[in-house]
């Protein structure tokens, strides 16, 4: 049985991981490799793993991304200029034009799609986009993935079981 390690390890990693806002991090503190598991609901099945790209901004499809390059283009977006190609995209959800699904559908064709979607807010845009990208996607988590997952974490997404496993290597 996979241990529901999220809640347990959460307490262990927080003081070092995000600093909890207390005092400067010193080189003496070495963070150990950890694994966190989130449980959610299947949106699209399948399995994929990759590096996390995390944003707290919702993402527009048409007009918000360039589907030829898999890049966020929206003015003032936290990820502006960054690519989600082959990343596990961790974000609050979709916004904007109804061209969301078609724009992300084109990323599947151009080979610039993310590997998987991990998100909070269900909408018709994101559901349809995930379906036609045919990438494992999970939502409705027991913990907020935006609080837990950091840029660069290695994330394994098991769409069928609705399980997301986060691996963070040791850092000094």
């Amino acid at each position, binding site marked *: 049985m996979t241990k529901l390690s999220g809640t347990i390890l959460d307490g262990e990693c927080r003081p070092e991981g995000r600093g909890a806002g207390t005092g400067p991090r010193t080189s003496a503190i070495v963070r150990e490799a950890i694994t966190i598991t989130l449980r959610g609901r299947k949106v699209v099945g399948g399995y994929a793993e990759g590096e996390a790209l995390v944003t707290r901004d919702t993402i527009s499809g048409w007009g918000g991304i360039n589907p*030829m390059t898999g890049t966020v283009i929206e003015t003032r977006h936290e990820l502006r200029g960054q690519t989600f190609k082959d990343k596990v995209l961790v974000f609050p959800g979709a916004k904007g034009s109804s061209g969301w699904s078609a724009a992300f559908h084109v990323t599947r064709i151009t080979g610039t799609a993310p590997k998987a979607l991990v998100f909070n807010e269900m909408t*018709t845009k994101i559901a349809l986009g995930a379906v036609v990208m045919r990438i494992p996607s999970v939502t409705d988590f027991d913990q907020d993935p935006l609080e837990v997952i950091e840029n660069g974490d290695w994330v394994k997404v098991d769409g069928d079981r609705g399980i997301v496993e986060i691996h963070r290597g040791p850092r000094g």
Partner: protein
Amino acid sequence: MLDGREGKARQKAMDLLVRYGEALGAERFVDTTNVAGVPAYYSPVLLDYYKVTPDDAYDVIYSRFDLDSDEVVEVPRVMVNSCALQGGVDAEGWKTLGKNYDALRMSEQSESASAARGVRILKTCTPYLAGNVPKQGEHCAWMESSAVVYCNSVLGARTNTEGRESTSAAMLTGKIPDYGFHRDDFRVATHHIQVEVPVESMLDWGMLGYFIGAEVGERIPVVTGRIGRPDLIRHKHFGAAAASSGGVEMYHLVGVTPEAETLEQALGARLPLEFIPYGKAEQRRTYEELNSKARDTNVDFVMLGCPHAALEQLREIAGLLDGKRLSENCKLWVFTSRAIKVEAEASGYVGVIRAAGGVVLTDTCSSIAQAVPPGTKVVALDSAKQTHYLPAIMGIQAWFGTTADCINAALTGRWNGRAP
């Protein structure tokens, strides 16, 4: 339909709708009688990828892209009232838009193949101005966020923001997942916005929508206070703005929209999650934000008609231009639907705009067509939605103001807009 007894295309369409419904967590479908989408819209990237030409692309693109099917199926006539929304090229003004003949041919081939299958060719983001007006309570499956928010809020019909694939599938099946705005409990307001400054002009309504979208995201606002009785155009600009800065798909205006006779009704007798005032400071901040993408007061392009201009807007534009000439340094493009353009021609408005040096275009807009006059550096706009998208898409500066501010810029080549 899923068992294939009604043909392969309907089977593939149902298969996609089932996967979509499961992704949403929906348990059943509703019967939809009004679908608005962009069936088998051709683009170079799709033609290249599927190795087809515009002459033989319809079934391939409809099957493989729209229905997300690995198998190519023959696409039959649509099953329910269906219409085609805006595209990327104007059949008459394609040269003005800088499009080549291939782009025109692509658009025409896709359009005629859709028409042959019974799709109404409205070619507009405002189907409700071009003859497709759903009745209250009707289950629709519409794309185009500005049309969706109008459909739910002003008409009291029911649609989620559908996408290209789900609308193309719904055209063939008359089914769409029973989720979201099809359900009574989903349509109640979550956020209460109290308007403390008078909101009157189209500019005022665009700004209020832009503010609310950014505040509430995908949630449902109910608005009270100094809102008067907005006309169709104000609804159109308000909803489009709220759907761009956020993901607003429905709003309630107390005493105005059909599901908000009272604040209590709009809120479903629940307390709002948040109470948000909109006063002078918020209005000022919104105006500044919408004008934060411009520095240069020399304007070389004015684009109006987002969402597509209503007849009254063309009348206003013609009135402002009557007997005048545009600055040599500035171009003016006004976008509308084919249906409204015919009426505006009959009313003489198109002639007046043309005589002043402007152009009335249909089917598309600068953002969708990714088209501005060559060398454009600074555009002036009267639409918060277009201001949200166009600078990012085309890499240009954009001023936001009233229609009169924009026409003034077109006549003088300079921006003189002022905050209200």
